[in-house]
């Protein structure tokens, strides 16, 4: 019954849109023929009519929430009382917030760089061996796993059972096999951040790999042959020909992963929940927004910070894109 009503709603929605486009188009045609004024405006009017529904949806679901978030960040816990800048002042002084900013920077610096680098190198090497395709499929597989799922898998890798017990964690098993003491990896500050980042890199390298593999195919083989004849070693070809050739692709992948990393939440939530100095902005926001009664004011401040972080990256990306098109 619910499925039926759902389908009906979808159907009605589609019908309404078809009707809207048809009727407005028809009206425009009809009046366009009668009034020369409308006729002149016809093309731009038609564009407005066709874009309007999409724009309204975009506005309601994306632009309005942005402004609502900004508004809420100036109000109290339940969004009633105007507090001015005090939520922001709180954030600047809050040690958890500072820690999060620092950690987020770490993530931003390390994860996109390493994922892009590994993706590029593996894509390059995989074409040279017969088992390259198999290797690529295996490396791509983590992409199909949700972050929480990946967290659960990696929990087993970093698992710690106390010094006297049998270690079931893969990393500890290796460490013990080499005769060292087992460690509670996720509780060692600073290093535990790197262990968490490894998970993200493990997932995102697959994405980079697949896109780079396709992009590598677009490099004409004669250009590489020409470099070989010019006396370039394979490493030199990689640095001087392939990387500049893939510049645009590298930029795109780096941006995608950077934005993803800025929002990193699931991995932290599933693995440490921000303990042992692994806090990040998104997890902190979730904490304030929904835990202990919830504080929409402080939560919004944190959400706003994440958004602010994305803007320069997008802006830089757009700028690079424009520059490339001008040449």
């Amino acid at each position: 019954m619910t499925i039926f009503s759902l389908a009906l709603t979808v159907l009605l929605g589609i019908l309404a849109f078809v009707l809207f486009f048809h009727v407005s188009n028809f009206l425009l045609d009809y009046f366009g023929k009668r009034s020369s004024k409308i006729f002149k405006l016809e093309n731009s009017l038609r564009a407005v009519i066709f874009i309007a529904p999409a724009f309204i949806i975009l506005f309601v679901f994306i632009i309005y929430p942005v402004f609502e978030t900004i508004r809420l960040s100036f109000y109290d816990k339940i969004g009633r009382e105007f507090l001015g800048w005090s939520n922001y002042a709180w954030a600047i002084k809050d040690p958890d917030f500072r820690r999060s900013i620092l950690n987020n920077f770490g993530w931003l610096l390390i994860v996109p760089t390493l994922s892009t680098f590994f993706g590029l190198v593996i894509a390059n090497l995989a074409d040279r061996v017969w088992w390259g395709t198999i290797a690529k499929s295996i490396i791509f597989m983590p992409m199909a796993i949700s972050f929480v799922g990946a967290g659960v898998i990696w929990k087993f890798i970093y698992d710690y059972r106390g010094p006297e017990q049998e270690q079931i964690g893969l990393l500890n098993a290796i460490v013990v096999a080499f005769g060292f003491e087992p460690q509670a990896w996720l509780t060692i500050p600073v290093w535990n951040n790197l262990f968490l980042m490894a998970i993200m890199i493990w997932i995102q390298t697959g994405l980079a790999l697949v896109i780079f593999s396709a992009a590598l195919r677009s490099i004409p083989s004669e250009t590489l042959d020409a470099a070989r004849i010019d006396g370039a070693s394979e490493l030199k070809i990689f640095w001087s020909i392939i990387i500049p050739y893939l510049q645009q692709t590298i930029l795109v992948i780096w941006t995608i992963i950077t934005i993803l990393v800025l929002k990193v939440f699931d991995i932290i939530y599933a693995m440490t929940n921000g303990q042992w100095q692994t806090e990040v902005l998104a997890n902190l926001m979730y904490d304030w927004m929904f835990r202990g009664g919830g504080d929409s004011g402080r939560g919004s401040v944190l959400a706003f910070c994440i958004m602010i972080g994305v803007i320069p990256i997008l802006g830089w990306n757009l700028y690079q894109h424009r520059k490339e098109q001008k040449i």
Partner: protein
Amino acid sequence: MSEIEIKKLNKLYGKAHVIKDFSVKVKSQSFTTLVGPSGCGKSTLLRMIAGLEGINSGTISIDDRVVNDLSPKERNIAMVFQSYALYPHMTVFDNMAFGLKLEKRSKEEIKERVHEAAKTLQIEEYLQRKPKQLSGGQRQRVAIGRAITRKPKVFLFDEPLSNLDAALRVQMRIELAKLHEQLDATMVYVTHDQTEAMTLSDEIIVLDQGEISQKGIPLDLYNKPNNLFVAGFIGSPKMNFIDAKINSQNTDKIDLSLLNKSFVLPKNIQGQLSSEEVKFGIRPEDIHLTESTDFDWESKAFVVEKLGSSTFVYLENEGEPIVVECAGDSSIKSGDIIKVKFDLSKSHLFNKENTNILA
């Protein structure tokens, strides 16, 4: 000195035997052209000489040194590709300097050599541009420039002019000829273009399915093709082939019937004939229009191509049409009945095995 000697070279791609027992000696400082139909192995051969493609068996030597196991850079060669293969993110200058930088030459020397090459090729004003900002002809010049800055002993060209328009091709052809004079290097050149092959080469090698069909100086190939393949491949429009039958032969004279008539060739046959059925070959320019009653054949013209300098008339024949070259100002229209006479002294005969059998 830079002689290339290839002995018993073989190349297989899986089961496909692409180059078969190929042996040739390319003289030092000569201009040798490889021609042949698409897929006959020209590029593969060139890439093997360059060291970009592995060899299954045989040897390649440059200056008496076997280079089979040397990398491209150790062979001291340069190659120019059909697609130019410029480095898109580098300026023209950097494109041309890339090889020199890898050789760790001094800045001054690099600059001097690049400018020298750019001057020869008249691309000095484009040195700071990117390849994208150049026309096809200019790009090809840069590609050639990149090859000559390193002053290699051997140049390999893989259809370098085929992406250019006709006028530019003629111009670049002349420049290549000049370049060959100036550089004292051995050049091996692959082309589809008849004119390029005929005009540039000291020697032409006709390749057919990975084997040498014939090699020699251009006019020899044109006037004395060894076999049907070379006869058909060299010359444009190609030689006319007409089925014929030998009735009798004695010294200095061959009696044969073709186009339902009887002809006497004032020539000798070499070797034994396995069959009387032969192919008679004659080039379009060796068939002449005639008004007299002493004509060899008459037929309707069904296509007339006027090129200005000459006119090609396609005559109806069972099987393939026969092409006749006439004067550029000829007034023949399609549909006209044409009488022609064959210049039998310039004709060829090919046996069933497709070999030229005239002595």
